[in-house]
């Protein structure tokens, strides 16, 4: 085959492989999001959507302290849970990457199983454990540790934090594990030989070298927590009013799709802004050294 023909074949192959994916995603993901975006400029009159462009929906959402509060609350939950997950996941990822030899693969699979069984089953299991007449309360009462059930265990911010952490922990462990696994041990040996203390070694050597994994995990957990609406609703009780449940209400009972889409787009914009800022700051920080070096 001539070089020109090989080039042509390569281009056709590329087109054949990317084409269906691009088409599929453009029609069924980008287009629906664009339609949703267009609704944020429409208005509702009784039971009809009036298709005359207006910015009134955005004004309403941005002026309302309630909606602003819900967006901020969602971002704070995202940051908080991602931070908790990284603290819990780091030692575990370190142990699996650097100490476990034979059972590495099964241990990682074991971590993924609850993840793959879906949000619903996991939330259900936690309701069984945490309920006022649930397993934990009844066990403590039966053992005589407490006399009255502890109500805060379910339908509270506490239970929401526990279950969200539980749900998204694997998304933090996996990238961290991959980053720590790739880290060369001789850097650690060198730091210790040169008299670096353990905490200093961690902050000056380990963390910069595994920064890419940390920021990847942080982003994923953040995005998933902000977007979660099942957990707060089924576990959080009255504290479970979130921006996602507010959006849901506007598409359900309230029949206010325009305001709902405006709120959805405010949330998406806030998420994108936060992620961009976080990644940029991390990249510039000493901990982002590992990422800068990889590029």
């Amino acid at each position, binding site marked *: 085959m001539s070089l020109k023909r090989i080039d042509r074949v390569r281009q056709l192959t590329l087109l054949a492989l990317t084409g269906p994916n691009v088409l599929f*995603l453009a029609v069924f993901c980008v287009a629906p*999001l664009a339609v949703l975006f267009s609704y944020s400029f429409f208005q509702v009159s009784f039971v009809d959507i009036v298709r005359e462009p207006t910015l009134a929906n955005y004004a309403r959402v941005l002026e309302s302290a309630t909606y602003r509060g819900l967006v901020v609350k969602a971002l704070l939950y995202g940051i908080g849970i991602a931070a908790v997950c990284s603290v819990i996941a780091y030692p575990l990822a370190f*142990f699996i990457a650097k100490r476990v030899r034979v059972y590495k693969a099964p241990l990682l699979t074991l971590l993924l199983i609850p993840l*793959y*069984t879906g949000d619903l089953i996991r939330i259900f299991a936690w309701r*069984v454990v945490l309920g006022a007449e*649930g*397993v934990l309360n009844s066990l403590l009462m039966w053992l005589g540790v407490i006399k009255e059930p502890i109500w805060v265990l379910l339908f509270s911010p506490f239970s929401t934090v526990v279950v969200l952490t539980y749900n998204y922990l694997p998304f933090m462990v996996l990238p961290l594990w991959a980053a720590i696994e790739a880290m060369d041990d001789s850097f650690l040996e060198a730091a210790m030989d040169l008299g670096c203390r353990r905490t200093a070694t961690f902050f000056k050597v380990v963390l910069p070298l595994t920064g890419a994994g940390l920021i990847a995990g942080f982003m994923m957990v953040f995005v998933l927590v902000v977007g979660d609406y099942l957990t707060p609703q089924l576990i959080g009780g009255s504290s479970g009013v979130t921006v996602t449940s507010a959006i849901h209400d506007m598409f359900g009972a309230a029949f206010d799709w325009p305001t709902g889409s405006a709120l959805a787009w405010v949330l998406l914009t806030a998420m994108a802004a936060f992620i961009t800022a976080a990644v940029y700051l991390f990249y510039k920080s000493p901990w982002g050294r590992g990422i800068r070096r990889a590029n």
Partner: protein
Amino acid sequence: MRFSGWAALRGYSIAVYGFVYLPIMLMGLFSVNSSDMIAFPLTGFTLDWYNQILHDGRIFKGLLTTMAVAFPVTIITTVLGSMAALVLTRHKFKGKTAFLALLVLPFFVPKLIFAIAQVTFLSDVGITKGLYTVWISQSMIILPFVTVIIASVLFRVDKRLEEAAGDLGATPWQTFRRVTLPLMKNGILAGSFISFVLSNAEYTVSYFTSGRAQPLSVLVASDFRFHLSPSLNALAMLIVLFNILVIVISEWFRRRAVQA
């Protein structure tokens, strides 16, 4: 590696695994406890709850719907995911970053917003909800996962094997058919099994796009919103056990591919 805290780290890791499996273990324990109440003390062993689930016609219908969704979704995501993984690991081209961004876009959009976008889109275009709308919206959510799994296998396949085939006079199609495809076979199998499991588990998107045909996850959700019963425990446990089986098979395929 020189580090003295391994014993503490081991204990800690065991504790985290305990945390991860505690709710599932307790669910299993109470699915065979004879009391109506899901609470201590235990009252005795029974398989009645499982018996109830196996004879519930509504559950069986939901299971059929779940399967009618899962098989097409598995096929769509495995085919598209394999193609995307091939592009990401084997081709260099302008706009590759944009292509990757497009592929992971559904992962970064909150599921609820994604589901609502689907609903507005369908109503605008005038499509009635049915099984096929669930196929498409679920595929979109699952595609990033399948692509990553297949790509993780392809990354480790030595490119020199394909180059050698080309040097020996194989056409690109022959190279793909005789070299690349056999090498990525296990990755494709692993991806398809995971796709199947994720489809079974998917709730949010299915709930919004399913219309009248309700998969198992939607049925279970409407049940436990109002009342927790031991028979729901039994059902959840059956789902978990089935998933463990499928995931273990899938991981076995993937590891075999990576090690080979």
